[in-house]
């Protein structure tokens, strides 16, 4: 158990960062890529603590060797990773990205393209971006800071990133290389470690009940008996997070709990 006591004032955002960091546990020497403040911190925290061989970037074009604080330009460069190299890297499979999702369904199909019909969207979002290629080629996780029945939906309006059903239908190579590692939200952690790869509630964050999670989910979640609680940051992780990686506490702005 973590040695963090109840008096350390751990925020929900800090729990989320650690839950995101855990996505990369065991990944070894690959590109850990995060989209958004909490995933970026998660990747940097994983590398700074239990997964030291990960490669992380500045989000622009270089791999950084140091534990770069958010917002700092004091980059110790260990490599060049322009967008073209990102595509080469992701098609080679040596990457695990944590993306966002405007909608996700029980199979892990993700939508960042648009809400409503594709022909005339109610709400146009980013577009497909790299989601189709990412999910076909390497491990993918998701960070969704606003889980609700509107983001955890029965059926996504457009499939950008492949869920397990789509990946299985896309042929044996993709089925073998597609892997959704975990989904982290402001309420809990989810995985697809079920017989039919339907989404399962893996843990609830401290202070959250499974009922709250169910109320914020628009499909039927797999929930085992005795759902675990998401672990708290260790004392060392809290120091790294608060004093090294995010001294400006930007993490707290992305989780409104």
């Amino acid at each position, binding site marked *: 158990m973590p040695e963090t006591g109840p008096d350390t004032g751990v925020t929900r955002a800090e729990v989320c960062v650690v839950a995101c960091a855990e996505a990369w546990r065991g990944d070894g020497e690959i590109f850990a890529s995060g989209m958004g403040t909490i995933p970026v911190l998660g990747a940097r925290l994983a590398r700074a603590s239990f997964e030291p061989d990960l490669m992380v970037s500045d989000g*622009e*074009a*270089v791999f950084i060797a140091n534990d770069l604080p958010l917002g700092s330009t004091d980059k110790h460069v260990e490599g060049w990773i*322009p*967008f*073209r190299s990102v*595509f080469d890297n*992701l*098609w080679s499979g040596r990457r695990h990205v944590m993306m966002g999702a405007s909608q996700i369904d029980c199979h892990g199909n993700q939508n960042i*393209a*648009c809400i409503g019909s*594709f*022909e*005339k*969207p*109610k*709400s*146009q*979002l*980013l*577009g*497909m*971006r*790299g*989601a*189709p*290629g990412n*999910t*076909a*080629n390497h491990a993918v996780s998701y960070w969704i800071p606003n889980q609700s029945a509107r983001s955890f939906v029965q059926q996504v309006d*457009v*499939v*950008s*990133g*492949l869920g397990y059903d*789509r*990946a299985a*239908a*896309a*042929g044996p*190579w*993709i089925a073998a290389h597609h892997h959704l590692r975990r989904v982290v939200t402001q309420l809990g952690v989810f995985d697809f470690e079920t017989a039919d790869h339907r989404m399962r509630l893996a843990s609830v964050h401290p202070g959250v009940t499974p009922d709250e999670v169910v109320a914020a989910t628009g499909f039927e979640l797999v929930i085992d008996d005795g759902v675990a609680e998401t672990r708290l940051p260790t004392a060392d992780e809290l120091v790294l997070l608060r004093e090294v990686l995010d001294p400006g506490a930007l993490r707290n702005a992305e989780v409104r709990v």
Partner: protein
Amino acid sequence: MSAAGSIPGRARDKRMTEDEVVADLSSDMTIGIGGWGSRRKPMSLVRAILRSDLRDLTIVSYGGPDVGLLCAAGKVRKLVYGFVSLDSIPLEPHFRAARQTGAIPEVVELDEGMLQWGLYAASLRLPFLPTRAGLGSDVMTVNPHLRTVHSPYDDGEELVAVPALPLDVALLHLNRADARGNAQYLGPDLYFDDLYAGAATKTYVSCERIIPTDDLLAEGTFHTLRIPRMLVTGVVEAPNGAHFTTCEPDYGRDESFQKKYAMAAADPASWATFESMYLRGSEADYQEAVAVRA
């Protein structure tokens, strides 16, 4: 500008103005725009298109405000893109409005890597390049023109055949160029500018400064000379020409101006004001209005 092109023994001088570039374009053309999102976009050339009578364009872009502005001006008949974003502001308001009102008659929304593949195929004069990106996703359903191929080898795997995306014209903005068209990027990422140039029949490069050929290594190594003059038809000296997008290391994104742009774009009345303030006059007028604001 210069007529020196036909003189034997003389190097061609490819310097032009933005309006001369636009005079070479015509409606219905397919135009690729370099850069990425709100980074190193040839904005002075885009602004010149806004001032023109050009219409019914097919635009190919890793989209940012270039796409937004052209959509808002009703110039776009068909849009080929992987995303449209202002980076620090994730969603592009003009592009969103155009999609939500059905103002873009035809869209081809691809995975980012597929877009690269289409440009690369065109630059290699291949009909397509294979990839797994797109398979299983709705890229395949919203683009019924996409076909798959089977590997002719023992694996027999089915792959997407990303069709070549040949361009009539590529518009790029780089940091430096010489008058003959050798162009140099000094920032962190070339993006896919060389592929746009390769895929295009004609490429026009705007740049922060035109310098003598002998000075091309003054600020960067030869590794940064990635657009050779044999690909370039015209060169435009356009200081601050990428404004308000990034043009590192010459300048970063003008975030406060971008915010002003995005806020104005969200509301028709504010947009009319923005347009009359910044987009009705010449490029010199634009730069002056921006400078006065700062």
